[in-house]
């Protein structure tokens, strides 16, 4: 699935940086019904993780009340050059990954 990641490409050591992520997902709540009364089964992302050079720096649990195409933003301290890895896990075995690199000077 398509994902949009916004991580600064360069940062100073010790600088606080913002990471913004947006991913494609319908986030079907499991509470809605079709026109003929059948329940639409729940299909949501349940967990999001961000790793910075292998170490987990941010994790979030997601719930049915979160809108489609979840947007998450958070902050971290730029310690060293390397890679951010993002992972979204959800219902029906859903899994999606993305990554972004940063140069710390």
């Amino acid at each position, binding site marked *: 699935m*398509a*994902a*949009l*990641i*916004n991580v600064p490409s360069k940062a100073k050591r010790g600088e606080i940086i913002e990471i*913004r992520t*947006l*991913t*494609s997902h*319908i*986030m079907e709540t499991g509470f809605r019904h079709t026109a003929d009364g059948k329940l639409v089964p729940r299909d949501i992302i349940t967990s999001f993780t961000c790793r910075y050079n292998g170490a987990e720096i941010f994790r979030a649990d997601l719930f049915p009340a979160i*809108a*489609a*195409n979840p*947007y998450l933003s958070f902050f971290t301290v730029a310690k060293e050059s390397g890679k951010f890895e993002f992972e979204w896990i959800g219902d029906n075995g859903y899994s999606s990954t993305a990554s972004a690199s940063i140069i710390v000077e």
Partner: protein
Amino acid sequence: MKSWRAIAVAALTATVPALLAGEIPPEARRSGYSFMGPDTRAMQDDDTSNPGVLFVLDGQALWGKKTGSAEKSCADCHGDARSSMKGAAARYPAFDKALGRPVTLDQRINLCRGNHQQATPLPYESRDLLALSAFVAHQSRGVPITAGDDPQVKPFIEQGRDLFMQREGQLNLACANCHDDNFDKRLAGAPITQGQPTGYPLYRLEWQTLGSLERRLRSCMTGVRAQAYDYGSPELVALELYLMSRGRGLPIETPAVRP
């Protein structure tokens, strides 16, 4: 005195023959963007926070994917969309010679699928069709709308204008009652816009997905308690064409974000 007034009215109408009473003059035309709050504007302006861009990326993938029994992709004929599709969305709906009527961008994509890719048409409002039309329209971002300049579509614009001015539904409202006569006012707390079709297909936060101009028109019709026209019906295409000619000169924003 009366004759003076008649002359004054005649002189006024003679200078602006193309505009009916209440229609918005070109210099006063404003995109729905200008009616939004700063948060929603910021969301549209930043391509990493605009959820419509997710669909554009999907469309980009579909553009290069071979499909149908002809085993051809869009790119096999049209090449690089950045040059071949630039300005295309600003010209649609456009006249199709074989059909003898105007077709929307969505219909053009499905005609291409049928005629050149030997593939089944994509259903209206399906993710793939929205993604493809968002990708194509995105190539025209910033290009001013020119749809309706073709003389062959003039009768269809007239039909669309009549539909726009015609009262309908249990609330007995025409499109013009809100979008020509009362824009900048509020309807239940939400700003009434001019209804300019600059950003379609666009991401509505209310829909939580991308949607076409036809979906927007159909929701308005349901809103005034009228029976909405079917997707792809000649009436919706005519309305779409009139709206595009009414927004002439405004730049395309696809994918726009709206509340």
